[in-house]
Structures are given as C-alpha cells and as structure tokens.
C-alpha cells in the first residue's frame, strides 16, 4: 500500500513537472507574431483544417514572397499552400515535402531551385524557423539530423526549451499574448508586403571558383524527384524572378539538364519578366530581392495559367464548401492589404517589417 502511494506521488509530481515544462516551453519559444514574421510560416500549415491542395510550394523566401495562393484561387480556382521558410535549404524542403505528403497528395509540387547553391547549413536561426514547428515524426528527426550546424545539439530540437531557456529574461508582452495561441500572419504561406522599393542598382556578379552544384544538393533533389514520382505528383522546378542573389547561367544550364534528364518541367521566371509584366520599379519591396504584393499577384496570374494548362488542374470555385473556406481567406487577405496600406500611409513603413524603426 505504502509502495503504491509512493509511486502515485512520484507519478503526480512528474506529471506536474511535465505540464509546467510544456507551458514554460511554449512561453519561452519565439512567437514571430509582431516581428520576424517568416518564423511563423511553417506552423501555419498545421492550423489548416482542410489540408487538401492542388499545389504545394516548397522553398525559401523566393516562394513565400513570389506567389499568392489567394490570387491562384481567385483567378483559377486552384487551391495551394506555400511551405516556405526563410533561407529554406534543399534538405529542409525535401523533409517538409515528405512530411506534407503524410497529410495530403497534391497534384503538383513546386520547388524553387535557388537553394541548390547551398550545400551546408547556413544559420541556426533558419534551421529553427524550418524545423521547430514541425510536429514530431521520423521525418522531423531526419530533417534535424540533416540540418544541424556543428554547434547545435540534437536534443534541443526535441526539447526546444533547452535552446530557448535563456529567453526568460527577454520575454515581452508578445510572448504572453501569444503564449497559448498564435494568430495567422500568412495567406496560405504567402507573406504579404505591400510596400515598394524600386530597383536602383544591382550588385555586380562575382565570378565563382566553381559553378557545379554539390552532390548533397543533387542527392536531395533526386530524393524529391523520386518522392514525387512515387506519389504520382508532378514536380515543377522554378527559379523566382528575384534579381539578387544572382542566378548564374551555369546554374541555369545544370537545372535545365536535370529537368530534361528527369522529365521535369523547369521554368526560370527571370527569362519571362516582360511577359509576366513585372516592373522592378513597382513590384519589389527591397530593390529586387523579393517581390511585393503587386509582383506576387502578377506572378501568380502567370504561373496559374501555366499550371492550369499544363496540368489540367480543376477549377474548384464552384465547390460551395471550398468557396466558403476561401472567402474567409480572401477577407483576411484584403484586411491585411488594407492594414498594411494604412500603416504605410500613417507611418511610412509597415510595423512588422521595420523592427529598428519600431524600437526607435
């Protein structure tokens, strides 16, 4: 009897400790709600009730800034979601895709090939943004193994409190407000920016000692190709029309050759900017690195046409249930546009993207 009581006591204490730690972990983890919004992108997919999309995008900022799923819906009735994150590397993209396929089987997967240039992890922060919000699974474990920088510890991905514990002294009202529930900040993975900063100069292209993409990148690209083929999904390789970082002709040739060899569709949008109608004096918010809302909508209209024609994607706009869901998304989209424009008018900048100005 005594022994039983003791076991119950210890179990109760362990349970209380675990509950406290779970709540503490949630409090200490960065929320990305009012600043560095791109950190919240990965988690948004899991909040989606209806995980059934025609198109899934994977890749870095060039995907989550260049395509608007709302436009794809409004113009073509295509349902899509962007599983993008800041400086998402190819292994992140692969594992995010592998993980997404646990929930749904899209018709088309779009991968932005800029990350082929990186063959080693770049920064812990980008790993965190890509991996922290993935639910625990074998895929996540493999993604962690593939992504970790030398100084990182595996266990800190399993128990993020071990990484973020020192944030206790930097907690802000944002952490308390979004402790248990975060808000939506993206539009099916699209991170909207309505401001404009025209292209004035572009840094000159530096010659590189070697233009060959490394084996590890091809390894993951092969895996992605195989995964899509296994699941009967069309893989589309794209290069978004960002003027910088430079996309070299040598890289482009390698991607063309790869696409041809593997019977994939590859499109470098930099070759079609006139056709798309991109004006780099009005369609970018940072001098040509990323597209703003106007640029993203133009891109989506252009790409939506390709997707519809090439892959015969169905127009779901007549589907009453889906229409109801997407009407809600459109309302939120318009509300964000309105809010960003009013902030621009009032302050001259958008709060969430101007940390320094906001901090004074």
């Amino acid at each position, binding site marked *: 009897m005594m022994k039983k009581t*003791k076991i119950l*006591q210890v179990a109760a*204490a362990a349970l*209380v*400790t675990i509950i*406290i*730690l779970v709540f*503490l972990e949630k409090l*200490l983890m960065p929320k990305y709600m009012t600043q560095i919004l791109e950190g919240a992108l990965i988690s948004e997919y899991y909040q989606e009730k209806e995980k059934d999309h025609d198109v899934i995008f994977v890749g870095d900022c060039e995907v989550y800034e260049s395509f608007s799923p709302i436009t794809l819906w409004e113009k073509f009735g295509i349902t899509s979601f962007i599983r993008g994150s800041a400086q998402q590397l190819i292994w992140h993209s692969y594992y995010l895709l592998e993980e997404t396929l646990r929930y749904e089987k899209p018709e088309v997967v779009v991968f932005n090939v800029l990350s082929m240039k990186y063959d080693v992890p770049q920064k*812990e922060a980008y790993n965190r943004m890509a991996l922290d919000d993935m639910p625990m699974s074998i895929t996540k474990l493999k993604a962690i193994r593939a992504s970790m920088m030398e*100084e*990182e*510890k595996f266990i*800190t991905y399993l128990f993020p*409190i*071990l*990484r973020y*514990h*020192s944030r*206790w*002294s930097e907690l802000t009202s944002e952490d308390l407000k979004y402790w248990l529930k975060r808000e939506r900040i993206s539009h099916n993975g699209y991170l909207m920016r309505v401001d404009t900063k025209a292209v004035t100069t572009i840094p000159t292209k530096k010659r590189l000692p070697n233009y060959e993409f490394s084996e590890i990148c091809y390894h993951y690209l092969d895996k992605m190709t195989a995964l899509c083929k296994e699941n009967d999904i069309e893989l589309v390789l794209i290069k978004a029309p960002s003027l910088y970082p430079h996309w070299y002709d040598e890289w482009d040739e390698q991607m063309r050759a790869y696409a041809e060899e593997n019977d994939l569709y590859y499109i470098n949008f930099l070759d079609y900017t006139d056709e798309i109608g991109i004006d780099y004096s009005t369609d970018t918010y940072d001098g040509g690195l990323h597209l703003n809302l106007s640029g993203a909508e133009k891109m989506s209209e252009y790409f939506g046409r390709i997707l519809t024609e090439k892959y015969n994607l169905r127009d779901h706009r007549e589907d009453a249930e889906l229409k109801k869901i997407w009407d809600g998304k459109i309302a939120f989209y318009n509300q964000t546009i309105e809010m960003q424009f009013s902030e621009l008018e009032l302050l001259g900048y958008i709060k969430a993207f101007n940390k320094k100005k906001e901090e004074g």
Partner: protein
Amino acid sequence: MVVTILTTYLITIEIGKLHTRRDIFLKENKATLSRDEKKAYREIIKAKQKKLLILCLFVDLGILAVLKYTNFAISNANAVLRLFHSQEISFMDLALPMGISFYTFQTVGYLVDVYRGKYLPEKNLGKLALFVSFFPQLIQGPISRFDDLSKTLFAEHSFDGRNVTFGLQRILWGFFKKLVIADRILVAVNTITKDPENYQGIFVFIGMLFYAVQLYADFTGGIDITIGIAQVFGIKVQENFQRPFFSKSITEYWRRWHITMGTWFRDYVFYPISISSPMLKLSKTSRTKLGEKIGKRVPVYLSSITVWFATGIWHGASWNFIVWGLMNCFVIIVSQEFEPFYSKFHNRFNLRGTYGFRLFQVMRTFLLMCSIRILDCYRDVGTSFKMFGTMFTKWRFSDVFQGALLDLGLEKSDYYVLAIGVVILVMFSLKQRSGNVWEKMENGPLLLRYAINIVLLISVITLGAYGIGYDSNQFIYNQF
C-alpha cells in the same frame, strides 16, 4: 589508465604475497627465531616490498608526470635555453586522459596502503579496475580510499528508493550550483581576468569574489553530482567539502575544502616525508645546530613546503599553481608562528568567543583565500601579483557605479539570479550546520519537498547558463 591498473594490480598482488609469506614464516618459526632474526627477516621482506613499491610508483606517477608535466618542463627548459640563445625544444602533442590526477592518486593511495599492510590487495582485477575507474568521480574526484569505497562499491545492491531519491536530489542540487551559478558568473570572471589591461583595481576585487563563488559552486556542484550518481547506485562516496567558507583559519579551511585531497597529501606525502630517515637525521642536526626551538621546526616546515609544492603542481602544470601552493604554505606557517602573539592578544582582550570576532575570522580567511586564488585566474605569476597590487593603487568605486558591471557580459537579470543563488547557497550551508539537509527535507511536509524539487529542476532547465554560447560540460577541476 589500463597500464596504471594492470601495473598496480600485479605489483600489489606481489606485495601482498610477501606480506603473507612473512606472516606464515614468522608464525611457523615463532618458537625457533630470536627477536633479532625476526626483525632481520621482516627487513628483508620490507626491502623487497619497497623495491616493488618504488617500481609501481615509478610507473604510475611516471605516466602522470610524462603526460601532464612534459610540456611544462620543456617550457621551463626553453626559458633557460633562451638565455643562452640556444635552440629551443619543441613541445610535445600529448593527450591528457580525463581525471588522470584523480585516478593516479587514488591508485597510489591503494598501493601504499597495501604496502603498509593496511589491507590485503584486491585479487579480482575487475574490482580493482572498477575502483580506479569508477566513472562519477573520474571527472573531478573526490579521491577515494579503497577500504572506504570498496565497502559499498563491491557490495550487492537491491533497489533502495530512499537512496535513489537522495541521489537524484543531490544531482539536481549539483546542477543548480554548476549551471545556474558557476557557469553564469564565469562570464564575468573571464571578462575581468582575460583583460588585465582594462580591468584593474576594484574589478580585480570583484573578479576575486566572483571567482570564489564560481569555484565553490562549480567544484562543490560537481562533487554533489558525483556523490548523487554514486548514491543512486547505492554507493557511498566520501564527502569532499564541509562549508569551507565558514572556516576561521586557513588550516581549518584546508580541512574543509577538497577534504580527500588534503587527507591524501597528509597520509601519503606529509607523514612519509616527516618520518623518513633523511628527515629524522635533518631534525636531529637542526636541533643540535639551531637549538630546540628553531631546530624542531625545520623538518616540519620542510615537509610542509614539499607538500604544498606538490599540491600546487598537482593542480596544474604551471608556475601559477606552484606559487599558489607555496603561498598557502607561507600563510599557514606565518599564522603558526604568530600563534603566541594571538594568544597574548586574546588573553588581553578576550574576544575569542564573541560573534563579531568569529565573523571577522571567517571574513579574514575568506578574503585571504580569495587573494591567493588570484593566481588561478591570471595568465602568469607576474600579472597575478600586479593585478593584486592594483587593488590598492587603482581603487575607484565610481567605476562600478557607472554601469561597468553590465559590461562584464552579465545583464541585470543575471545579477538577480546570482544574488538569489548565492543567498540560497549560504542558507543551505547554514542549514547544514545542524545536520543533513536532505534528511531534514525528508521529514518535512510532503508538498513542500516535491515543490522544492520541482522548482529546483525547473530553475536548472530555465535559468541554467548552458547551450549555444556556453560549454557546461567543462568542470574547472577536470583539468587536474
């Protein structure tokens, strides 16, 4: 470690056999041998054992000497060679096994005890190997004795919930000290001591106090973890600290700080040297030539100097540690010499038992130890003394009150954590004076006990200075 274990095992077995042969021979020939014959036989056996002892010491200490002190010897030789503009000797790339000083001393202790006939040698190689390599104490001690540790190390154990609970609590407490206090304050200590050009005067004083906190929390925390792990397995490891910062004199401090090292040096270095025949001869000569009063001190002081020199160099292959050891010795000798003056003073003013005077003694000892410890912190002996000097020549209080404390790598929140942490340490030590805190806790209210443990665990996880930017695996004492 393998060589140390094997050599010690084989040689102690031989020494043991000689003990047995002697005992049997003397027993069998008890009636026939005269006292002189017995004595002569004992001496023959002793001489053989001594040869074996020396051989084993040569191997065990030789490994330690080569691996730990070769480059130190080379750097000193190079300093001499530079004077003569001769070609310098290249340093050697030697890997130092973790805890070599600890397991070597532990092994030597066992060897000497067997030689002295204190106990029989362990016949089971596995058991001896377990004693030498018992993993929790490899990192930073304590230096266990075979007869003490073997009682529980080799005994059969059944699950004991109380031991596990106490052990886990002790581990948690150790991590609290190590991660929340020691590794946090380390940042400020490093900022001050790695930049002696910019941090002088009052900063040296602050660094000195901070280092005392860091060293105490780090070392005692490490020992708590060691004792705790052992306790979980039902093994009793000797305590290594007894509230050292409450000591009223340096001699007392060394009885309460790193206890197992102090007693090791006392039993295996100080006593053997003191009663060695050269020392006895020296004692006789010095008494004759210098008189009884001074002459009797010569062998004691010489033994003390040897012990403190060895203690210093054991702590690290550098002159800083050697001078640190000798400084301790100097202070102890001076305080012994001043004892008659103290007695006169106390006879005159009768302050000895008062709370104020006891507090003064504790503060004095603490500051004295901190001052000597400065030698641990700076890159060389010269810088250490220079920085110590600046405490008296460049003392400017205003430096501290102009936000300089926040330039030491710690934020306000860190200072709050440290302040609370130190208060908890002091309170814990005060509670310890009247008995084992964990046992007291066991008898306290159930909810309070669980609450303390949960708070302690959560504090370690959230407030611990670990992760990227910290290297919490490094304990200060694991370099020794």
